[in-house]
């Protein structure tokens, strides 16, 4: 057993040492994999169950009950403050509001995602794999326990007669089969699957509260109007997710990106917007071969 597999479960070590290979590939993908000169070694996986700590009222991370309260905000993180235009003070009137990037939630997500990814790589490295193809990842709540499970699964492969990657760290991709073959043909080599989550908390101020509950109340407009604070928070969550992913690209290309957005309404106007972006980081290893212009066809039958 190599050092890389030192903390793998015993069953995983026995399975990976087995003479039989396993793969999550479909039969066509398996055939395409062999055609590419990739030898499947085993299904590899990584898990990490994370518990999110309390980030609400009273925590060190909470922005506080007024715009000047100190919090766990990181320098340079996104924050935007909104102030009441009505000019009066009342306990029930939200005089200020804020959009705030929850960097601590983002780093917790990145920790869970990165840990489970690295465990999958450990399994692959223990087999001497060069890459992991057909990666599938899942982030879900674990059986109503208030915890979040990160799970990676993929097929470890070896490039027949090929050199190991730099540092022995296997490359990874969500692609397999025909799509992987086409990428290689087009001159794109997979480097890694990349993902990032951006979390933006909306603390509604009076105008946002009125607009999100139907434009009523003090000075609230009675015709449709853009809710600037929430619209900006949505845009910020997407822009931050792209920024975090771009930081992992180092000039490479992101193919097949997928954006997933989860919104959780906490109170009238108050919400959390979590945006996850994932995709394939690809490196161009040869000049692009432009395919001939496609010829339209009509299929009979």
């Amino acid at each position, binding site marked *: 057993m190599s050092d890389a597999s030192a903390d793998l479960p015993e069953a995983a070590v026995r399975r990976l040492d087995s003479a039989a290979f396993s793969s999550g590939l479909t039969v066509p993908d398996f055939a395409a994999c062999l055609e590419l000169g990739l030898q499947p070694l085993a299904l590899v996986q990584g898990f990490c169950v994370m518990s999110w700590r309390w980030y609400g009222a009273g925590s060190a991370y909470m922005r506080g009950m007024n715009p000047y309260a100190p919090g766990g905000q990181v320098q340079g993180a996104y924050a935007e403050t909104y102030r009441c235009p009505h000019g009066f003070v009342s306990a029930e009137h939200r005089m200020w509001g804020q959009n705030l990037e929850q960097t601590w939630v983002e780093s917790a997500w990145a920790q869970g995602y990165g840990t489970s990814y690295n465990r999958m790589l450990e399994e692959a490295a223990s087999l001497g794999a060069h890459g992991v193809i057909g990666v599938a990842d899942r982030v879900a709540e674990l059986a109503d326990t208030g915890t979040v499970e990160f799970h990676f699964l993929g097929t470890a492969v070896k490039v027949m007669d090929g*050199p190991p990657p730099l540092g022995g760290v296997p490359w990874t991709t969500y692609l397999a089969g025909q799509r992987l073959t086409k990428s290689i043909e087009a001159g794109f080599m997979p480097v890694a699957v990349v993902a990032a989550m951006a979390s933006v908390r909306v603390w509604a101020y009076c105008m946002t509260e009125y607009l999100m509950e139907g*434009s009523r109340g003090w000075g609230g407009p009675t015709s449709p109007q853009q809710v600037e604070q929430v619209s900006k928070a949505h845009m910020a969550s997407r822009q931050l997710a792209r920024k975090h992913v771009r930081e992992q690209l180092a000039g490479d290309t*992101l193919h*097949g990106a997928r954006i997933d957005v989860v919104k959780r309404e906490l109170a009238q106007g108050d919400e959390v917007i979590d945006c996850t972006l994932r995709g394939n980081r690809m490196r161009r290893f040869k000049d692009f071969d432009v395919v001939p212009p496609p010829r*339209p066809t009509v299929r*009979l039958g």
Partner: protein
Amino acid sequence: MTDIPAVDVRAEMLSGAKSLTVAAAPTKSRGVTSDLSIDEALLLHAAGWEPVDLVCGVSVVSVPMGVWNWGQGEITSAAAGHNAAVREASAELRNECVKVQGHGVVGVRVDVEVHPHHIDVELTGTAVRPVNQGAHPAVPASPFISDLSARDFTLLAGAGWMPVGLAFGASFVYAPRRSAGDTMRQKTQNIELTNFTEAMYAARESAMERMQQSALDVHGQGVVEVKVTEGPMHFARHAVGFTAWGTAVRLVADAHQFVQPQVILPLDDKIVAFEAQSLRGA
């Protein structure tokens, strides 16, 4: 037909694997991001376009209180809110496209959520630009937006047309009510409920008219790939919403270019026309 030379994919794979044995040279390039599949990226290149960046546009527009209460006719505030949300989201998407020097956005995914007090519109797509920048040096002030796939975009461009923007229209209407007398009288009749027919007909036409008007606003000559949705609001079953959207297009060539598709007859027909067993007779 030209023969495409066979590619030695094993040799290509080895070249790719070798490229990862050395560290990548440091670069200040932003790198391309896109939600296109590799097929779509290749197809775009074949047509002279390339992806630049993943771009988004989001808008949340409020709906005044009380608009979903029982009433008659069209719910104009909701329709105005809906159309404003699409307009604002499109403007955000265009801004992002201009920032990354894109000439347009293809494959736009349209997500619309209608809530009792606000309407959320989210647009996500890939900004693209011509590969040969010399032919199109300036980034247009108003890039096109299209929900067409890269495949359909390529086909459209090949026929001499270009998308100019998203065409969108919405209409909301109260389900008409009948008087108690009418209800009782019509219980024993086979009869068209003309007030229902007229209300639904008018609402559908309004949504489509608004869609066509929005196409004209962006100087489109027509709309392709029109999608129509309709149904009651989940929070107000007496209110019915209609939306119609598609991609506004404009002829940029001197005349429509006929693509003259090649007819193919696949031989892997799933329907077995001849059963050998039938030769045996009864």
